[in-house]
């Protein structure tokens, strides 16, 4: 099964019905599948903090939500993660393309890559790193874990995971 289908299947199995996205080249396939799936309301955001606001509202309205974004967004969303998602204790699985890792052609991406895990650790955000496609087997359990503990949870997916650029 295609990796994008596997990810979307896990979302649907875990009743995640509201997904917001800010695109990344690596995430194009999964965003397309989210848009096409009849059980998912896909709402593109203009900025990731806006997306986290949408997810907070959807969650309070009874729909499990998730954000799909690039790791550069960690720099954009720290205040939102701390004062909205964590402060009000809301679950938020964040499927994140981990740009700036091995195989990265754009030098500037390495600049945020070196801060990504440190920032997530500083925020006490449980963080998983998918490097090989087999790692995605855990995605289902990570979603269950996120909705069990009501926390934002990061799933970093690097270029090797997605099969290069």
């Amino acid at each position, binding site marked *: 099964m295609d990796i994008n289908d596997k990810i979307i299947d896990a979302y649907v199995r875990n009743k995640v019905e*509201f997904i917001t996205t800010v695109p990344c080249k690596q995430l194009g396939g999964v965003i397309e599948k989210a848009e096409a799936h009849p059980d998912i*309301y896909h*709402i*593109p*955001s*203009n*900025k990731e*903090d*806006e*997306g*986290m*606001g*949408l*997810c*907070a*509202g*959807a*969650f*309070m*309205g*009874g*729909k499990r*939500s998730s954000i799909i974004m690039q790791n550069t967004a960690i720099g954009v969303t720290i*205040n*939102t993660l*701390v*004062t*909205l998602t964590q*402060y*009000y*204790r*809301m679950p938020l699985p964040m499927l994140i393309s981990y740009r700036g890792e091995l195989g990265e052609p754009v030098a500037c991406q390495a600049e945020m890559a070196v801060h990504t895990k440190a920032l997530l650790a500083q925020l006490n955000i449980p963080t998983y790193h998918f490097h090989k496609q087999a790692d995605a087997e855990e995605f289902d359990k990570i979603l269950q874990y996120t909705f069990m503990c009501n926390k934002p949870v990061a799933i970093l997916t690097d270029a090797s995971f997605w099969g290069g650029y």
Partner: protein
Amino acid sequence: MIRSDILRELAPTIKGTLTVMNIGLPSQEMHMIDDQPSNFYMLGTMGLASSIGLGLALAQKEKVLVVDGDGSVLTNLGTLPTIANNVADNYVLLIIDNGSYGSTGDQPTYAGGKTKLEEVAKACGCENVVTCKAEDTVQAVKDALAGDKMTIIVAKCESGNIKVPVITMDPVVIRHRFMETIKERNA
């Protein structure tokens, strides 16, 4: 009229309506005037009231009112295209436009200058945009809540603040009682 005058007049009309209150003084004022479990108070995260309200409106059937401000909408200006392109007819966004960042000491916003948020909203594709004077706000909100069309209201008022206590309620309590109200309404 200043924002707190509008909120005082508005309180009986929106009692029980699922309402997302903007950060800072708007939340504190509404909390002092008429605290309701159907109110969600933002204690942080400037700019996201309209986004939280939209997510909520899209996720369930009950009417949702967002009481926002010009400064906060400018902070999260990307919200207007998202609202326009994801029409939720149970969504009413009230932007109290006093041309200033009230909670931080009434520094002027660009909405008090050349920028007209009602025109920005229309340019973003919002189809039902109402502009009103402060004293007509209650009627505009009543009409919007009675209708079945997504509505953006820009209510123009004077800048100025009253003294209000901060909200000391725990955020999890605010969220829990709000969610319980939402569940009851949708049952």
